[in-house]
């Protein structure tokens, strides 16, 4: 990607425009590189996570003015995750929070499938699968909203028509939509009403791309304070009828009660007018709703059973028709009020033209159909055809990701839903929403679990999980959750997990231990020993010998321990005989226990013991100490891991033992062993690679002499 020369104009602004098929609008990131133009070269590469590393190079300038000029600079550009409404920290919080529900659902899945294999008969306590998924969905949904709710005001502002609620986000809206259609069986009977609620919560999300009832209300709310005679304003009636069309009844009634005729000084001469306004308000608040319950503050009368609802619905419409034909309308002097109220009655009677003018986009029209024309629309097929009709009446001017998702859902096209999720939302969304899609539909289940040859033999489900796991892996704080998703991937998960674990940095001890802990959880012993080997070599190379030896010991890496033992003996040979022996104490302590592999290093431990007992002899201790020293010497000389180059210094150090005054300390067998070693050493000296010990030239001879003397005395003794 390098070699791209930018022109000076762009370099001054310092902008990089990423172009990708996914991003429809180009996003401009400004760079502050502080390198003076002309810029000769620009190199771009991926850095950690979602960052680009941009290297800016200047034209090599002439030597006289290059003194204080910066020749180039490397800057990092953090790219947005494409979803501006959710910050990185929030995304991480969602990622953390969804781990437990996801893991729980996966483990339930295994339990359920193993149970169903065991016995075909269903136990009486059997919980339907979709109920588990619903629980999962609710858990996830709770993560998506903002935790903080705005403080409740004690005294309600009469003019606050729109309640301030938490900022809705598209992710939550999409999630709830999928939960509604795919998981929640209980609310299937009143799905239209659920959609009404859904739009009431999220209509504001569409305001960014088109006019909505919500945006109309927000605008009107702003002007409300300055309005003197509210009912004279055509906007007032427009907003009321729009809110009524989408079923925001509480808002409509509240607005109606702001009507001028309610004011005490006007009540007298506008009695009929006020009576009509109130009659409409009462009719609205009595609207029959086909749903089990309503939130506090919402209006309407709930009916659970269809026949009851039908009766009430007919009666309600009769009342509207009666009011419509009433003679009072002629007595109503205020033109705007009369027309506005009659328009509202038409909306309630389900006049398509009125509904069409009152609503802003097809979703709103769709909802108004459910409310006033076809409250019993059921099943995907009829809902889809109704949606098609609404789109015809109100064509989509600018598409919105939620609208496309809804069309995909209604069209019963799992592939479209999935594609929308991955295109418009995040890999997180696809991975977690897949559980919703498969909750009730066998077809979706088959589609998502079918192995695709062109995907390398993996299923769609696995593919999306792998993608999400890779997103998690790129961040320093989330890589630890990636294994949970990777291990749920049957085909390629474990392979990728091993790569992920192997690539983590080893320099930070705590991170290293966390990494090894993950290996332990998933029984990846070979990976963990590999990581420990890397850590061991890292520490060894950085001069931390203790840490290096520790990690190599943990990894049971005999080969490397042997190699570093050879290096270490060089420094031991020089320093251990000195007083700086204590320096090595800690390391030797570490090598101490017999059970662990230490390469040739266990020699050091014995050597230390031997040295200790020699020191005791020098301090004038008894023969017992000397005997102990001899034991150590013999075991050292017997031990194959004792390097050859230490043989002579060891023997030279123990000259005093070999020529002990009181009695020969070594028996014939032991003396012979040492003599043999000495012989071996003499032969080895002829080899070119032999390293001469740093000892006086007569050392060998004096040792030989002492050994011979000891041999003689030992023979005599025996």
């Amino acid at each position, binding site marked *: 990607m390098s070699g791209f020369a930018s022109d000076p104009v762009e370099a001054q602004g310092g902008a990089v425009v990423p172009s990708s098929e996914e991003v429809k609008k180009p996003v401009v990131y400004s760079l502050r590189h502080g390198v003076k133009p002309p810029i000769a070269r620009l190199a771009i590469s991926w850095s950690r996570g979602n960052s680009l590393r941009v290297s800016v190079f200047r034209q090599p300038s002439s030597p006289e003015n290059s003194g204080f000029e910066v020749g180039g600079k490397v800057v990092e550009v953090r790219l947005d995750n494409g979803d501006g409404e959710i910050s990185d920290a929030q995304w991480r*919080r969602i990622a953390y929070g969804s781990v437990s529900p996801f893991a729980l659902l996966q483990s339930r899945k295994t339990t359920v499938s193993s149970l169903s294999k065991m016995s075909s008969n269903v136990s009486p306590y059997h919980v339907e699968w979709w109920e588990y998924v619903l629980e999962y969905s609710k858990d996830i949904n709770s993560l998506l909203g903002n935790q903080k709710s705005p403080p409740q005001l004690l005294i309600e502002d009469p003019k606050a028509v729109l309640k301030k609620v938490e900022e809705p986000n598209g992710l939550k809206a999409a999630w709830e939509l999928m939960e509604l259609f795919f998981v929640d069986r209980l609310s299937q009977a009143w799905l239209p009403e659920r959609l009404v609620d859904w739009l009431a919560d999220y209509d504001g999300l569409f305001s960014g791309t088109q006019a909505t009832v919500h945006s109309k209300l927000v605008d009107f709310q702003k002007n409300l304070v300055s309005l003197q005679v509210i009912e004279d304003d055509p906007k007032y009636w427009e907003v009321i009828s729009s809110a009524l069309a989408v079923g925001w009844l509480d808002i409509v009634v509240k607005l109606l009660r702001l009507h001028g005729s309610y004011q005490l000084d006007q009540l007298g001469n506008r009695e009929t007018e006020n009576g009509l306004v109130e009659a409409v308000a009462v009719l609205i608040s009595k609207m029959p709703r086909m749903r089990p319950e309503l939130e506090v503050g919402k209006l309407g009368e709930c009916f659970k059973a269809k026949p009851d609802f039908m009766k009430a619905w007919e009666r309600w419409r009769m009342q509207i028709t009666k009011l419509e034909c009433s003679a009072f309308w002629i007595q109503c002097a205020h033109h705007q009020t009369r027309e506005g109220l009659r328009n509202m009655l038409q909306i309630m009677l389900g006049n398509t033209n009125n509904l069409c003018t009152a609503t802003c986009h097809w979703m709103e029209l769709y909802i108004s159909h459910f409310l006033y024309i076809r409250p019993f629309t059921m099943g995907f097929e009829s809902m889809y055809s109704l949606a098609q009709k609404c789109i015809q009446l109100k064509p989509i001017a600018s598409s919105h990701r939620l609208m496309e998702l809804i069309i995909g859902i209604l069209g019963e096209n799992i592939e479209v839903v999935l594609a929308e999720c991955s295109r418009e939302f995040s890999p997180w969304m696809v991975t977690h929403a897949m559980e919703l899609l498969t909750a009730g539909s066998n077809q979706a289940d088959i589609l998502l679990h079918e192995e695709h040859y062109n995907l390398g033999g993996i299923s769609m489900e696995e593919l999306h999980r792998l993608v999400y796991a890779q997103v998690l892996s790129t*961040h320093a*704080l989330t890589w630890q959750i990636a294994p949970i998703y990777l291990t749920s991937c049957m085909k390629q998960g474990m392979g990728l997990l091993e790569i992920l674990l192997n690539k983590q940095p080893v320099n930070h001890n705590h991170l290293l*231990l966390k990494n090894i802990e993950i290996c332990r959880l998933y029984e990846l012993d070979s990976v963990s020993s590999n990581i420990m080997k890397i850590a061991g070599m890292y520490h060894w190379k950085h001069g931390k010998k*203790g840490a290096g030896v520790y990690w190599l010991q943990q990894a049971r890496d005999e080969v490397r321990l042997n190699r570093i033992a050879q290096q270490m003996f060089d420094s031991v040979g020089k320093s251990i005989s000195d007083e700086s022996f204590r320096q090595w104490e*800690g390391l030797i302590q570490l090598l*101490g226990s017999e*059970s662990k592999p230490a390469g040739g290093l266990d020699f050091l431990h014995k050597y230390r013991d031997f040295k200790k007992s020699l020191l005791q002899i020098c301090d004038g201790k008894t023969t017992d100490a000397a005997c102990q020293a001899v034991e150590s010497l013999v075991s050292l000389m017997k031990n194959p891991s004792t390097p050859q180059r230490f043989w002579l210094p060891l023997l030279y150090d123990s000259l005093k033992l070999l020529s002990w005054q009181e009695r020969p300390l070594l028996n014939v067998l032991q003396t012979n062993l040492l003599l043999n070693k000495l012989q071996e050493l003499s032969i080895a000296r002829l080899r070119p690679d032999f390293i001469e010990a740093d000892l006086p030239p007569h050392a060998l001879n004096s040792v030989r002499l002492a050994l011979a003397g000891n041999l003689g005395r030992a023979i005599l003794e025996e």
Partner: protein
Amino acid sequence: MAITEIPIPPQVYRFPQSKFIDAVRWLPPLSPLSKFAVLATFDTDADTPSLETHSISSTSQWTPHSQWTAPSRISSLSTSHQLLIATSTLSGSLHVLSAAEMEVLFSIDENSGFHMGPIWGVDVMGSECVSVGEDGRVNLVSVNGGGEKGFRRVYDGNGLVGFNCVKWASPSEFVTGGFGFGLQWWDLRRPGADGPVSQFKGNFGSQGKGSGMVHSIDIHPSRKHTCLAGGSSGTVFAWDLRWQQQSIVLSGVGTGEAATHSLSESEVWEVQYDCYTKSSNITSSRVLPAMFCSEDGILAVVGQGQEPVELLAEPCAINSFDIDPQSPSDVICSLEWEAIAIVARL
């Protein structure tokens, strides 16, 4: 065994932080109605490490108080009664701050030959600070200044050893911990002795598991001969100076007797004596109850010959905790998933 009452589960309050928390400590409260804590945080988005103090009101309202940006990621945190915060960094510098104003009182940067590479442990007692690192150096720093270099080298392991943690036992004695479940007892009154006064090496890895390391040490002010340590494989053990060759294992795998009550099998990141939990029979030979937190998300209290009590089981690691010295029923812990939890025991 006597039938005990079913313990009332503690109240847990969680506070998301949107930053990684490396360490957490209580501080003496600024006002009687609120609590005060210091967090060592690391903001990965901005790549900035910092120390933050927060006050927590009785209604669990969380308010940031003051902040100080550290030169490098914070590796260890220690507080003293005099409202001092001692903190060390991964680059090898040490800083002492006043808790109330977050003002740097004393600082040693990494280029002064202080430590090579990360300092893993720091402990402050009175105005004396001891620091240990991966490089095997043990340094003393007096907050009141003193010495040309600003510090005194007690020992230089030249990388042949490395230390993970340190804790004062008395104004002249301290204990360090490191690889191979090793503990070292140091006495500043013994000059000439180049190295620790006595050493202990744990040999817990009997089931084919390797050795481990010590991550945290605590010493009770009234029983300074017993040293509490926590480390790999869920191990919590006590080392009594009077019986140096053996240790008392309170929790951990791989040990025959203690294996029955092992709550955790992963790294124990921190241990502290828990003065809130009353031991059933207090004798001088028994180890006082200890609290620990672990990589597998356990916060629990263990005692010698007592059933362990689990206070918190999180889906993510609990990296550090602190028991409030003023009201020991309250425990603050930092969770791996960028959050703080406060556990209030009833």
